[in-house]
């Protein structure tokens, strides 16, 4: 079906499925088929932040104090997160918007992607502070074997859905031969691709960031790289919300509360969905091994990080009906929760030392002399 930017059919969006119904026409939010997406938009917008408002200048000094193995951990994680947000800043828009059929979900996807672009900009902010010229770091993202391996796995489900959607939009359902390759495009196949893609995105938001988050917060526990940690905390808060949205989509499908065919597909492809998740878990464990190949950092090693990935995976997988495949019951990194709690993210600008409010602020230095006239 050809995409139209303003569908002239006077359809009722309240009876459209989330995906593959009529294209959206009026962007209206007075009535919603799935009000949760409108609520997520409101929440996400209330989280708005700008990387430049977070003072990262002290990190430059801290960074010089890190050992070589710690520098490797820190920089590799930033590269990996840059990759993840590069993909997430564009892909939900390109893959999902052309096939979405309800306005609140359309706007949620746009809002979600926009926040991923804030994350991408924040990595430049962090790296520019550390290096002056961070180009070699960015250049390595498309060279580094470990990162490329993940990039391929994350983007393939998106790319597959996007290509199939393009064929469907231009040629319709049927068997199409493009450059000698045969592609069978049916609505069922498209929906399957969508289902797998959504599972892959869900796994990304659920666990792919967490090895890197754990390292960042382990530095912060030692009062190192705290500007970076403040930014990552804001990113983690957003990612938690994004995860909530993909969990909602998957559960609306599985529980038959949207498109009945998607409920069938969810049942049919459950094993594949589980494999996507478990594969992401394996990759994250490999990533932990890569990070610690030159040595550990205080408070964290490969084993404990792998346990944490399993612990998080249990929680995330049970949320979408995939059970708890790992034995681990207790959180091996309980201090992580303090960093992931929104109580500890400054939200009221007038409060305290305020990373989130000062625009172009400079003064983050406090010297002993400042306390010179104090008497105890």
């Amino acid at each position, binding site marked *: 079906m050809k995409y139209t930017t303003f569908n002239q059919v006077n359809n009722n969006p309240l009876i459209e499925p989330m995906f593959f119904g009529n294209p959206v026409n009026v962007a209206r939010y007075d009535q919603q088929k799935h009000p*949760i997406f409108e*609520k*997520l938009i409101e*929440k996400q917008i209330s989280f708005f932040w700008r990387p430049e408002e977070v003072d990262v200048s002290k990190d430059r000094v801290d960074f010089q104090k890190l050992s070589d193995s710690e520098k490797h951990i820190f920089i590799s994680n930033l590269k990996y997160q840059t990759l993840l947000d590069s993909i997430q800043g564009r892909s939900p828009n390109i893959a999902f918007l052309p096939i979405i059929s309800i306005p609140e979900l359309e706007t949620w996807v746009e809002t979600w992607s926009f926040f991923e672009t804030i994350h991408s900009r924040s990595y430049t902010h962090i790296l520019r502070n550390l290096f002056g010229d961070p180009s070699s770091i960015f250049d390595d993202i498309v060279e580094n074997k470990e990162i490329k391996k993940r990039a391929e796995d994350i983007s393939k489900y998106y790319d597959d859905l996007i290509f199939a959607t393009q064929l469907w939009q231009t040629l319709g359902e049927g068997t199409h031969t493009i450059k000698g390759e045969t592609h069978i495009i049916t609505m069922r196949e498209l929906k399957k691709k969508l289902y797998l893609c959504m599972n892959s995105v869900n796994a990304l938001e659920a666990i792919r960031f967490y090895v890197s988050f754990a390292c960042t917060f382990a530095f912060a526990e030692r009062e190192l790289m705290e500007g970076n940690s403040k930014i990552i905390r804001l990113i983690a*808060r957003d990612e*938690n*919300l994004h*995860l*909530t949205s993909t*969990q*909602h989509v998957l*559960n609306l499908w599985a529980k038959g509360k949207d498109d009945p065919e998607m409920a069938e597909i969810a049942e049919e492809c459950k094993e594949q969905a589980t494999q996507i998740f478990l594969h992401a878990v394996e990759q994250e464990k490999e990533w932990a091994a890569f990070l610690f190949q030159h040595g550990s950092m205080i408070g964290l090693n490969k084993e404990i990080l792998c346990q944490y990935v399993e612990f998080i995976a249990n*929680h995330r997988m049970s*949320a979408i009906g995939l059970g708890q495949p790992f034995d681990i019951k*207790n*959180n091996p990194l*309980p201090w992580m*929760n303090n960093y*992931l*709690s*929104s*109580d500890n993210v400054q939200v009221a600008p007038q409060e305290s030392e305020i990373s989130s409010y000062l625009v172009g602020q400079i003064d983050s230095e406090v010297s002993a002399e400042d306390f010179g006239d104090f008497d105890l």
Partner: protein
Amino acid sequence: MVTIKDHKTVKHPPQNTLLETIEQHQIEIQYHCREGYCGACRTKLTKGQVEYKTDPLAFIDDDEILPCCCFPISDIQIDIG
């Protein structure tokens, strides 16, 4: 009163969220956002009723609650898994 499966039965002060009560008794429970949008504290409610003062945004099943933002309105039984 709040009965937590495989742990104990504890008294719930009305001003607390359920999560705060559980934490005050040193019972390990997972949490992240503490505002109802991430779902990390998702817990099974096996008996009784709770209310929310703000809408929970995270996905929860019909028999599940979010301790971080809910308040029991009767004696309850929960299973934190």
